[in-house]
């Protein structure tokens, strides 16, 4: 139906010929008021003063620690003398620990490359965008799949003797398996782990392994990258 008015703006709306989509109701949505995002406050002063406070707290902390904790300085660089052990900065020590088990091409190029690629791709992976809990859909089949992956990973890591990677993997795997068999109405930890989506489990596994590897590389590796107990070795 078109509307003719005196000004003749020519506004045409032919609802029968060109139906217009007003709202799209999917299976998962329900008619509800969208979440109110809460009141607005002026950026100045509310946000800016909070940032200023954060800056001041940070300055005080950094100054205090810098006054007492000296940055290290070893001997002059000597290309002919390799210190034992020769360690990378702490954020690369996890990688150096991996290098102990896998050839440089794998641990130094492939794995970091895969990690960075995986990180970049995360938001474009349209799987489970609503964050459904891990055992919500097809629990039996998914459990078999995940168990298969855990076992395959265990075999692979054991083949390479990479037990510092294997131990945290097995731990996370054990918690995952326990969460499958735990009762949905059970203890608070059981309910918590059962409610996490797959993406949470993957990231938590990655973070846990990375932290363990970094800790091992920092405190538990000595000359020749041999295993040392930090309380027996002097300095890390």
């Amino acid at each position, binding site marked *: 139906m078109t509307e003719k008015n005196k000004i003749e703006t020519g506004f045409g709306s032919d609802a029968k010929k060109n139906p217009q989509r007003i709202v799209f109701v999917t299976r998962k949505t329900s008619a509800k008021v969208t*979440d109110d995002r809460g009141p607005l406050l002026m950026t100045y002063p*509310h946000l800016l003063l909070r940032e200023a406070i954060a800056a001041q707290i*940070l300055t005080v902390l950094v100054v205090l620690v810098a006054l007492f904790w000296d940055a290290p300085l070893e001997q002059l660089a000597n290309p002919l003398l390799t210190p034992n052990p020769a*360690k990378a900065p702490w*954020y690369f020590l996890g990688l150096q620990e991996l290098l102990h088990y896998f050839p440089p091409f794998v641990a130094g190029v492939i794995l970091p490359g895969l990690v960075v690629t995986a990180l970049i791709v995360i938001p474009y992976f349209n799987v489970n965008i609503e964050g459904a809990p891990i055992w919500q859909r097809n629990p039996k089949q998914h459990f078999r799949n995940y168990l298969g992956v855990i076992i395959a990973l265990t075999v692979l890591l054991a083949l390479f003797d990479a037990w510092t990677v294997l131990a945290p993997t097995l731990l996370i795997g054990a918690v995952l398996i326990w969460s499958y068999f735990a009762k949905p109405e059970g203890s608070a930890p059981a309910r918590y782990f059962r409610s996490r989506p797959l993406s949470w489990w993957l990231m938590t596994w990655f973070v846990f392994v990375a932290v363990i590897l970094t800790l091992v590389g920092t405190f538990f590796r000595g000359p020749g990258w041999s295993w040392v107990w930090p309380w027996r070795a002097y300095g890390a």
Partner: protein
Amino acid sequence: MATTLHSLLDQLRETRAWKSVFRRGPARTNRTRSLAVFGNLFLHWMPVKVREKSLAVRASYYLGSISFLLFIALTITGILLMFYYHPAVPQAYRDMKDLRFVVSNGVFLRNAHRLAAQLMVLLVFLHMFHVFYRGGYKPPHEFNWVVGVILLLVTLFLSYTGYLLPWDQLAFWAITVGTNIMSAMPVIGGKLRFTLLGGNLVGENALLRFYVLHVVVLPLIAFLFIGIHFWRVQKDGGLTVRSKDDGKE
């Protein structure tokens, strides 16, 4: 005493000189507060109003803000350190000793710089994990997440190039191992290592190149991407949680 100071300040604010710089008067009404953000060169990328929920510590733990503040601190301490550092072999090492024993407050400055650097790497990782667990990468924030990953790599590379600069055993061998890992890359690995080091060995060319990267190239890239990162956060709606069922909250 306080009132005379107050009235002095008020008089100052009435002067023509002051008004020519701070044109809108004190930000005491919502209008002037809006203008203080909107009309400011350094702040106008921010919205004039923010959601109250986004200000809570639990919303972001201010991890991103602290990372940026650390970056500013590193820039300032870094520039100060530059006044006493020569990127030459073996002068660089002597300059480190100078900073420690000769230069006033040199040891504090270097400690602060190194501490802030370690903290920044840690904070950037924490920020990334927190954004992930909060679901802050989901549409429409995908591009900003990628910008964040780029910033992570820039931060790591900044820390790595800075690591060589003291030219001590720790620095030299950490970089030797790292560049050897890089040469394990197929086809381009060897050439990449040669170009980065400016030679076959870690020597004076490597020190100079790492210095230029650390002091000029990477900070500029970082500033550029930080700008994009901040802009995208605000343009995509700020820090509010979109709905209660998103991720962990």
